[in-house]
């Protein structure tokens, strides 16, 4: 028996949605099998995970606040990456750019936090992070434009450079190293929460909304608008679609590439400033892998800005929910979410395939 792959037309919208929903359910089923095999009731686990332990919890508002702390850096990074991806510039250096931004904003907090008003410090932190990350991203951009190097490799390698710079800062006990606690014998990052922390506003009850959430939503709307309606957004689309066409239309392709790469990296820097500015401390795991997860989010959302917000919310439920669930289910590590995320991505890609093709059995024909 043989099978053949046959192309199919785009079905109606709801039909395509069905495929993706089925993919996600199938991924959860795979997760359920694994959970069951280690003796955990998958229904209990999933209900804990998807509610993030908020049901019947007196401090559910805290869970939501923590959830948003994870959501903000992820969604902002994914939006930033989608800018570069739209131009077919494969920026997978989100991790490195995020770290550089985090170091720069922490530096501002330590150096100027004591003298400046907090609002000014926070603004400076954002600017410093955007510049540091933007310039760090530009390295790969300039090399590509000048020498035709592969940006995928360059940004990937630069991730590790940035990571080890962060390790160096985090583990070197020395007089110059103001990032560490001066009175601790072991290398521990110093907190600057007292001089620089993004404020939150109470919305009636105990739930407090952090200003970074509002800023993130505003930036998301602006980027959506930027890509869709501005001349620069139009240029990004053309360069991504066909660099030759852009050249033929008289666009300065190199300039557009550099500008967009800087913008993409700078927004990742801003995400890191938001992160550092809410936690008030640097750490070697400051990125929480958003540079990687952001790539997955951007692709699952097919680079559409509104979809990036929705997908980020769901991915964060997985991630945050699994940390919460790990408290009640000690045998399931919180990295279960990473595995589930991988299976979802894989199965959504499979669903993509079935949206475009179908498999038919070859009818018996001939003498084989």
């Amino acid at each position, binding site marked *: 028996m043989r099978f053949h792959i046959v192309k199919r037309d785009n079905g109606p919208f709801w039909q395509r949605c069905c495929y993706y929903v089925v993919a996600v359910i199938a991924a959860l089923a795979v997760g359920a099998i694994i959970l069951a095999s280690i003796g955990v009731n998958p229904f209990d686990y999933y209900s804990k995970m998807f509610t993030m332990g908020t049901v019947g919890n007196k401090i559910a508002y805290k869970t939501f606040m923590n959830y948003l702390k994870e959501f903000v850096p992820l969604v902002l990074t994914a939006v930033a990456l989608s800018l570069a991806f739209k131009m077919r510039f494969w920026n997978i250096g989100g991790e490195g750019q995020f770290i550089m931004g985090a170091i720069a904003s922490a530096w501002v907090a330590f150096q100027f936090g004591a003298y400046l008003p907090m609002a000014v410090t926070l603004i400076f932190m954002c600017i410093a992070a955007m510049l540091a990350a933007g310039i760090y991203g530009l390295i790969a951009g300039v090399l590509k434009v000048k020498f035709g190097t592969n940006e995928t490799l360059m940004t990937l390698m630069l991730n590790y450079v940035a990571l080890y710079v962060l390790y160096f800062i985090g583990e070197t006990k020395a007089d110059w190293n103001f990032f560490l606690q001066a009175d601790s014998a072991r290398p521990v990052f110093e907190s600057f929460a007292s001089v620089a922390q993004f404020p939150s506003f109470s919305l009636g009850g105990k739930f407090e909304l952090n200003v970074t959430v509002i800023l993130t939503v505003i930036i998301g709307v602006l980027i959506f608008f930027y890509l869709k309606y501005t*001349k620069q957004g139009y240029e990004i689309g053309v360069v991504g679609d066909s660099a030759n066409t852009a*050249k033929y*239309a*008289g666009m300065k392709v190199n300039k557009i590439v550099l500008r967009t790469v800087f913008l993409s990296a700078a927004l990742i820097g801003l995400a890191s400033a938001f992160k550092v500015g809410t936690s008030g401390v640097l750490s070697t795991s400051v990125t929480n892998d958003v540079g990687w997860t952001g790539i997955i989010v951007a692709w699952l959302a097919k680079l559409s800005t509104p979809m990036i917000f929705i997908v980020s919310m769901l991915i964060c439920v997985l991630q945050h929910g699994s940390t919460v669930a790990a408290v009640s289910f000690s045998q399931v590590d919180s990295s279960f979410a990473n595995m589930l995320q991988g299976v979802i991505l894989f199965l959504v890609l499979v669903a993509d395939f079935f949206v475009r093709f179908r498999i038919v059995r070859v*009818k018996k024909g001939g003498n084989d």
Partner: protein
Amino acid sequence: MAEQYAIEMRNITKTFGSVVANRGIDLAVKQGEILALLGENGSGKTTLMNMLSGIYKPDSGSIFIDGKEVSIDSPEDSKKYGIGMVHQHFKLVEVFSAADNIWMGQDKTGPILKKNRFKYVEDIARKFGFDIDPRKKVYNMAVSEKQTLEIIKVLSYGAKTIILDEPTSVLTVQEIEKLFGVLRRMKEEGHAIIIITHKLNEVMDISDRVAILRKGEYITTVNTSETNEQELTEWMVGRKIDLNIDRPIVEKTRPLLEVRDLVIRNDEGSVAIDNVNFYIRGGEILGVAGIAGCGQKELCEAIAGLRPIEKGQMIHKGDNIVGLSPKAILEKGISMSFIPEDRLGMGLAPSMSITENMLLKNYRDGKGPLVDRKRGRADAEQVIKELEVVTPSSETPVRRLSGGNVQKVLLGREIKAGPNVIVTAYPVRGLDINSSYAIYNILNKQKLAGVGVLFVGEDLDVMMALCDKIMVLCHGKVMGVVHAHKTTKEELGLMMTGVLDLSEKHEDKPAGIAKDSLFESKDGEEA
């Protein structure tokens, strides 16, 4: 059965999604026969042949080889049944030698590159009556040599039936003659040959029978000796069509664009255009003929300001345009459209809509940071209406359109800008007869409006009918400028290969320098 066919396809149907590429096609070819498969672009010729070469599998219908029903599931099966296909885009490894390319796919030779492979391949080539250098690397070969290598390759794998997909589109007149000689000899040796083409004169010249497809449907098969070009066209297009191209006579103006001693380098840094002189008047079409890659692309890019100019001058209405930005040149009214081989890579953004593609050259106009989409939509609607572009809407991505409509969108945009010089390269590349004539009409309309047209083309018959004058390039040098109605195909062919050089024909008036040049008047002012 009275007749034994080498290959017979019966009632073949193949669909891609809701698109029917082939519906109920019958096709048969005998040994020692050349069958021409004729049809416009998108009529399903290549799809049908790909089912013989094992790339696709028919949805229904049956294939018989030497009278036995077979199932071709893969290219290996196809090879086993003695079917060899020479694709339009050659399947050769550029960095390998001729011998290695053949050795690689040979079943008998085993996994080791033996030293005697050059001798082995040379012997095979000689056996089939070809002369090639087995040590020559493919990237050093001319197009016709690559094609010969492809033919030797399929023959050496034991092919009894050979399919050639548009083999003549890349060859000069002389090379086509040579290829046809080879095909006739293979026919005498008892091979069955299927040649895919949409050029009628070649069908009449080489084939014994013609099978015609139209929009995926089988029309008929006729003996070549019992038909004529007019009849074939009607079958192919489905209605009567006038095969004559108009060449309206227009009052010419003084030269619009003059090029003097132009030298341009290509991407590799070697000289692509070598001391070229020419001029275009308003109301004339100047054709540029030449074998592919003789500097046509570089010339077009230089005129549009996209490529630096090493030496020389370009004067547009008396103003020097050398060194101006592409945008400034565009504003002077010089538009350039280049249709590359993939047809979408230059000038259009394939995933973007017609509206968005209309904006490509004028999106910067208007104040503020926003793109004026309304204007793009209005332009798109107008082009769709005026040039009869077939599309569901102005928001359809360009890559979903068929080739002819894509090219109409491109030319439509260029004309919309109201240029006085149009540089267009291969505007009918890959188009069917109907669409091609639509494009010729568009160009003639511009000519009547007093626009100067530089037409870089491939088909000499078309250029001789459409253009007023033809400039022939060979390795970046001008071989002469001839009047289109006075020249012959043979003369152009000899000039293209560099055998005939007419650039020094008139000693008093060098080719490509106008009598009433605006250069002279400028020099006069300076003196």
